[in-house]
């Protein structure tokens, strides 16, 4: 594409990352290590402050946190969705990209609390794990959920968003310390993938970067 100087869309392989990768490294197929080294070590531990906009009350947030903790619980296979930041992911999405789903969340979470209350006199978050699982199973099956009309749709919505938070890019507030990617063995995003890394028995080093770190060198 030698022509087209000054074309707005023209952008050759000149991102900051690629400029840091020498031609020799590319030819040798070792750019992956460069991609890791490029990110400052301090950025690897994704410490987070509470930057998410708040769109839930404490009661609602506790119900959501309890719900994601049962969808992906803490056990021998790793932390729960809550520790991985899935509730935080969902709440910040509800303040932005998923604004239109806020009402569905508020009424769904209210229904969870109402049913828990009528069953055992406690909020959903304060109920025991067995009781929480029983209520969620009913939600999933769309049975025995009082006035709440479409509980299965609500369950599916929260399940889908929990998976997004757990396994999506950490820059959205979930997948803290790469908990989701470690669970399923995903080695992480990287710019350059060698032929060897695509063999079936390849041992692939973990990239330990978010997509935004990879491309822009920052979160």
């Amino acid at each position, binding site marked *: 594409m030698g022509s087209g*100087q000054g074309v707005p869309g023209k952008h*050759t392989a000149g991102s900051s990352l690629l400029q840091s990768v020498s031609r020799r490294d590319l030819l040798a197929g070792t750019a992956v290590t460069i991609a890791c080294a490029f990110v400052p070590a301090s950025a690897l531990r994704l410490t987070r402050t509470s930057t998410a906009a708040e769109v839930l009350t404490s009661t609602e947030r506790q119900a959501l946190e309890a719900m994601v903790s049962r969808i992906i619980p803490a056990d021998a296979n790793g932390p729960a969705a809550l520790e991985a930041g899935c509730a935080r992911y969902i709440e910040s999405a509800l303040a932005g990209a998923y604004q239109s789903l806020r009402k569905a969340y508020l009424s769904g979470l209210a229904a969870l609390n109402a049913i828990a209350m009528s069953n055992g006199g406690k909020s959903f978050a304060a109920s025991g794990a067995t009781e929480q699982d029983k209520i969620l199973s009913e939600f*999933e099956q769309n049975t025995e959920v009082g006035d709440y009309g479409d509980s299965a749709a609500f369950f599916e919505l929260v399940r889908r968003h929990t998976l997004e938070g757990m396994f999506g*890019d950490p820059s959205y507030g979930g997948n803290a310390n790469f908990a989701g990617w470690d669970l399923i063995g995903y080695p992480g995003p990287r710019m350059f*993938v060698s032929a060897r890394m*695509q063999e079936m028995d390849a041992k692939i080093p973990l990239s330990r970067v978010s997509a935004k770190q990879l491309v822009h060198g920052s979160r």
Partner: protein
Amino acid sequence: MAPVKLPKTDVVVIGLGAAGGFAVLPLAQAGLKVVGLEAGGWFQAKDHVPDEIRNNIRHWPHAVQKANQEIPTARNGRDGPALPRPAYHPMMNGVGGTSLHYWGQSWRLTEWDFKVRSETVRRYGASAIPAGSTVEDWPLSYEELEPYYDKAEYTIGVSGKAGNIRGTRDEAGNIFESPRQREYPMPALRHAGFADHMAEAAKRLGWHSYCPPAAINSVPRDDRPACFYHGFCGSGGCPVNAKNSTAVTTIPQALATRNLRVVPYAHVIAIDSDDHGRVTGVRYLTDKKEYFQPASVVLLAGYTYENIRLLLLSTSKAYPRGLANNHGQVGLHYMSHTRNGVMGLFPFDLNRWYGTPAQGTSVDDWSDDNFDHAQLGFIGGGNLLVPMELKPIEAASMSTFGKAPRWGSAWKAFVKENADRWTPVWAQISTFPFEDRFLDLDPEVKDPLGYPVCRLTVGLKESEKRAMTFMQDKAEQWLREAGASAVDKLSHVPIGLSTHAYGGTRMGDNVETNVVNRWGFSHEAPNLGILGASVMGTSGARNPTLTVQALAWRTADHLVKEWKSIAL
């Protein structure tokens, strides 16, 4: 307020995607002054982040959301129930269009696809044509389009391995392809471990697998690198410009001639015509301000749904039922591939994490007319594809194959073990037009500007269900041979919105049953050309883009040669 009238140009192209963004090059090179109207804006490589949430879940929030605000509705039959209306449209707006984020699969159709009716009647008798089908032979043959396929492959840049050069077959490529004049401009994409594993299984079955062709660099080309195989190609733009979208290939080349002017953020609302039935130009909105771009020739190059909608919305004295629709053919002969796949679960890791979908392996033994259909109750068949590339949310959203619940600790243990132990085998099945499947305007649902959205009337035919069952059995056979311990077949449901939408402005010599002539120009409005899969009369068993591009170049070529008679 009257629209702002702009200076007249030779040609205005509506939509700068895979089709329009390709056709501008031969026009500009011939010296014609071209204005390209594009609803979206420009993207750079650094806009393309390997981020599954942004690309695959939220569908490019940084892009103009025109397509997402006018999502068509769909219903299962004329009197049937509405089908679910998805939250996102599969196509996008931007300079380069959906070629920015497609899989890049760049197939040719086969000789058979161009003469399905006559070949079926010849081999199986007239009764083998499915009842109610309006399928016709194309007005051109594969041989006539071959030079344009070649042009498209070499202009855009396609990686692949020929399986049939002038009749000489090579098992390293696809031996079922129709003859090509020469090898691909770039070798096939790199081999990947699991794709090779599936290729070996196909070989044991006596099938012929090959690495499918793709508009992705397998080697450096021009000043752009070879694919980095980073694994975010499906619905993702390329961060190193190794994917050959029109935004990095033909559009910059056309701009360099100084004969193309790109107008981004131009939301086209109508094509105007005079009392003699000739089109006069295009009206569009930018920032709520209306402009009129007069032109000697208009090329409509939106996606199929928008092509049909824009024609039907462009009513005038000469065309009271919509532009180029005085024979009532706009929107008819609509089809899309039936959605068909089989998931396989393996007792070992597959390492599908990286790569690019087209890097997989494909089988054509059961597509087109490559096998005897005498007792099968359907015609055509499907291309089978095992794609590479697995993204983490996609991986965790896998089928549980009836072996685990969908949440909780047992599910967590299941995905921990199996997230990289499953694969789809996709079957793209050739579909044919039927008299009761069509596109029109929805009587109720409107876009934010108040214009009706497109409506799909679809449905699944018995012959199609038989073809799907047949192909799913083949896919299962392949997976089992490769070591799969369980399979999960997608259910047979009518497909709504599709990224492979064909027909609606069909190409043919008969003005009573077709919208455009053999060159892609309207039978009724002689200076209106239509580009895109909406002109295709059969789908073939594979992705449409390369055929769309070959046809677009041919239409542009014809316009250049016949400029005086078309433009007047």
